[in-house]
């Protein structure tokens, strides 16, 4: 069982400069063909400063910084047993290529079901841009199959 004392633990701050090439790669991977996501001129015509960051891409900030998986291991999670249970995003402003995004997270809850056969770690994150403006919030539930 994961020690409940880790509830409230903060993860290391993660920062990512969002690059156009990475966003085009992401668009290819998910089959996105809307020119707004791959052609900067189309993006600007649609009112964006540059290529908009697709709604779910910001998960990459902590993955690239490699802060999430080590933090899970540090609290005793076996990474080969994890599944993504739930994910929620709230958006307050658009994020575009060229922005530098910072994610600050903490483990907001840890609980179990079925007498520990399934455990859950809840991570809550605040996402800010290079101007210090809060642009999004994220909530993730990670399930561990014991």
């Amino acid at each position, binding site marked *: 069982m994961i020690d409940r004392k880790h509830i409230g633990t903060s993860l290391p701050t993660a920062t990512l400069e969002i690059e156009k090439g990475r966003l085009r790669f992401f668009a290819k991977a998910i089959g996105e063909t809307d020119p707004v996501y791959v052609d900067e001129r189309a993006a600007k015509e649609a009112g964006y400063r540059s290529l908009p960051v697709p709604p779910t891409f910001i998960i990459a900030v902590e993955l690239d910084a490699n802060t999430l998986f080590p933090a899970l291991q540090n609290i005793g999670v076996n990474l080969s047993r994890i599944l993504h249970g739930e*994910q929620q995003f709230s958006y307050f402003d658009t994020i575009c290529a060229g922005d530098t995004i910072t994610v600050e997270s903490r483990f907001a809850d840890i609980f179990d079901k079925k007498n520990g056969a399934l455990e859950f770690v809840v991570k809550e994150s605040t996402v800010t841009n290079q101007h210090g403006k809060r642009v999004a919030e994220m909530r993730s539930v990670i399930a561990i199959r014991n």
Partner: protein
Amino acid sequence: MSCPSFADVTVGDTLPPIELSALDRTTLALFAGASGDHMPLHIDVDVARKAGMPDVFGHGMLSLAQLGRLITGWAPQNRLRRLSARFVGITHLGNAITCTGKVVEKLERDGEKLVRIEIQAANQFGEIKTAGDALVALP
């Protein structure tokens, strides 16, 4: 892109669905690289089998990215206020996923007119893999 107007949208309206081809290993490899999720469970069959899985399988976030496309193909992304999902089933190789959405509520909050859209991703056998909702502000 044109944006649906709040007045023209009715509870029960459906979004144009996205029909994906059968999930393959190439897609998993590309998504691992592009998303930054390098967990070997999704790209290395040896690791997946050691973890008790029959094979590699789809990232939940790949499924949610497709549901994001469903929304942003209907209304511009700067109208999206919330995207939320539960990953209720594993998407296996060969699963052909269809993403669907239905307007279930019209509401006003913080001076904005919003619609709540129930979204889901299901395979060719009708098994739901990802289910959730989105809040979209409309003019």
